């Protein structure tokens, strides 16, 4: 039996179904992210694990114990909030020690644990400060330390980096992963940031409209999306209208040019089939044994590490991402180009 298990869990608010028939098994020390757009039910699912919402149906077990209807203060589950939720009236040390104090732990144990947690998040010098005296990133580290101080059975993080600026976000997510691996703590992480989910997680759950769309490792989710929603939500994707689809031989026509495809996402292809291909799979120039198409460059966008071209194929246009190198000679808007991509990298939706 899995360490944390959600079986047929659903949550209905009035007439709205926030989560529908959700099933998940998480192993001990695993890092699982819930990824999806706003309103997809990821936070509601997290809150049901934390005990802040009661499931309408289904069962939640943690370490073989049924916790479905347990109150949050009985679950021993640590939670980190987007707004940090540090107690403004308490110092950093008191904030971290709050959980142990609520458990009536001896003062000596509390002091030792507070110091240990502060060392873990590298904020030892701030023990006597108040939350408002720290930056956003520091406050979130303290919130993490506070949640970990009680030795929780599961750590829940609800979009913990959303309120921080980009640079701090990248730093802190590395730190979250480091701490999670060092402590071997089972972690559920809610985010709408695909990069965050792919980088941090052992497995990613992609959610949409209260349902689980796909669960898998970051590589599986990105390379083998099982639904159109996952394909579009995770990473960039070109969706190009095609005609004369030959499913048996894997051929179709895109903007009057023949394309060979390797596999389709769904067993059944929609009435208006489209060819899906990620921008980074496309190369400028002819490639041996690859699909080769002619087009005209519409725009060239310099994005730093990547240069994004918009190419008109004559009836359909697609994006192509080129890795930026100093030696790269970029085409200009209006130039005629030949593009190529392997048949394994495109599929029909």
């Amino acid at each position, binding site marked *: 039996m899995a360490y944390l298990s959600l079986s047929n869990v659903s949550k209905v608010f009035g007439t709205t179904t926030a989560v529908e028939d959700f099933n998940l098994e998480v192993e001990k020390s695993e890092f699982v992210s819930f990824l999806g757009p706003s309103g997809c039910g990821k936070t509601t699912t997290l809150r049901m694990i934390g005990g802040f919402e009661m499931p309408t149906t289904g069962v939640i077990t943690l370490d073989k114990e049924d916790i479905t209807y347990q109150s*949050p*203060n009985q679950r021993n589950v640590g939670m980190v909030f987007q707004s*940090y*939720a540090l*107690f403004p009236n308490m110092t950093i040390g008191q904030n971290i020690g709050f959980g142990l104090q*609520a458990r009536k732990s001896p003062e000596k144990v509390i002091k030792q644990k507070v110091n240990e947690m502060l060392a873990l998040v590298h904020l030892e010098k701030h023990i006597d400060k108040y939350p*408002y005296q720290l930056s956003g990133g520091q406050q979130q580290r303290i919130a993490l330390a506070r949640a970990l101080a009680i030795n929780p059975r599961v750590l829940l993080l609800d979009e913990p980096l959303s*309120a921080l600026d980009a640079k701090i976000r990248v730093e802190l997510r590395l730190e979250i992963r480091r701490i999670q691996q060092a402590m071997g703590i089972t972690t559920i992480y809610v985010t709408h940031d695909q990069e965050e989910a792919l980088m941090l997680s052992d497995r990613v759950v992609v959610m949409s409209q209260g349902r689980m769309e796909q669960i898998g490792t970051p590589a599986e989710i990105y390379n083998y999306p099982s639904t159109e929603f996952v394909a579009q939500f995770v990473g960039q994707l070109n969706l190009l209208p095609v005609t004369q689809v030959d499913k048996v031989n894997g051929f179709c026509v895109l903007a009057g040019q023949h394309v060979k495809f390797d596999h389709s996402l769904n067993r059944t292809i929609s009435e208006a089939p489209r060819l899906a291909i990620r921008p980074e799979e496309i190369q400028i120039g002819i490639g041996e044994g690859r699909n080769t198409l002619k087009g005209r460059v519409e725009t060239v966008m310099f994005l730093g590490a990547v240069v994004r071209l918009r190419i008109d194929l004559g009836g359909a246009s697609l994006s192509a991402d080129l890795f930026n190198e100093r030696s790269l000679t970029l085409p200009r808007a209006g130039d005629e180009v030949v593009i190529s991509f392997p048949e394994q990298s495109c599929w029909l939706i």
Partner: protein
Amino acid sequence: MAASMKRRSFWSWLWIAIGALYFILPLYSTFDFSLRAKKGVLTFLAYERIFKDPNFWSTIEFSLVIAIFTIIVSILLVVPTAYWIRLRLPKLRVMVEFISMLPFVVPAIVLVFGLIRVFSGAPFFLTNTYFGTYVLLVAGYVVLALPFVFRSVDTGLAAIDVQSLTEAAQSLGANWGTIIFKVIFPNLRVAILSSAFLTLATVIGEYTIASFLVGIKGFGPYMSLIGQNKTYESSSLAIISFLLTWAFMGMIQLFNRGKADTSALAGAR
């Protein structure tokens, strides 16, 4: 441009001066009058007589004690109610806010008659004993102070993220008692103090309810009695009660300045 600025500044100062005169002139006149207890001499004689009157001290003591009980009951009643409404019943907030404003609409005389009528017969005989009457007095004042207390506490709650703080405390293993007394109350310190001083100022000078329930024991009825019988002393009493109120207001300002921004600055930014 400069001339227009000057003109605007002149009018601003003129209106400020008119406003100030409107408030200061009657006050100055009262103060001036209170100093004329002896013909042809400016003296604090009226103040001396007031401070020497044992009824002044006994009534002010009585009203202070009643005010303190009113504050305690109000806070214990309103803080958990306002907190629970913000946390679990946000749709009821408008209704509760409306109810809390009723004391501004219903006159105190109606309230005190209602209290006497309901609580002087079976099954409640509260007006038969001193203790029962004091309980009624505190209850009446709790209603009277409701608009100030609810407003202050609700504004205080709006300044903190009640939901997240509660859930954070719960996830750390805290029970409701710990959450209310260690997390919510300390973060409402300024709001609670503001409402406490406003209640104090209201109760100290209240006349209608006090005169019907306890008569001359209250500071409000005492002021009224002095006003009917002693000309200069009543003016000095008016100035003293003004000073008392200002002292309370000053204390609110002092506490507000102290720690007002700790909760506002913490959190996501």
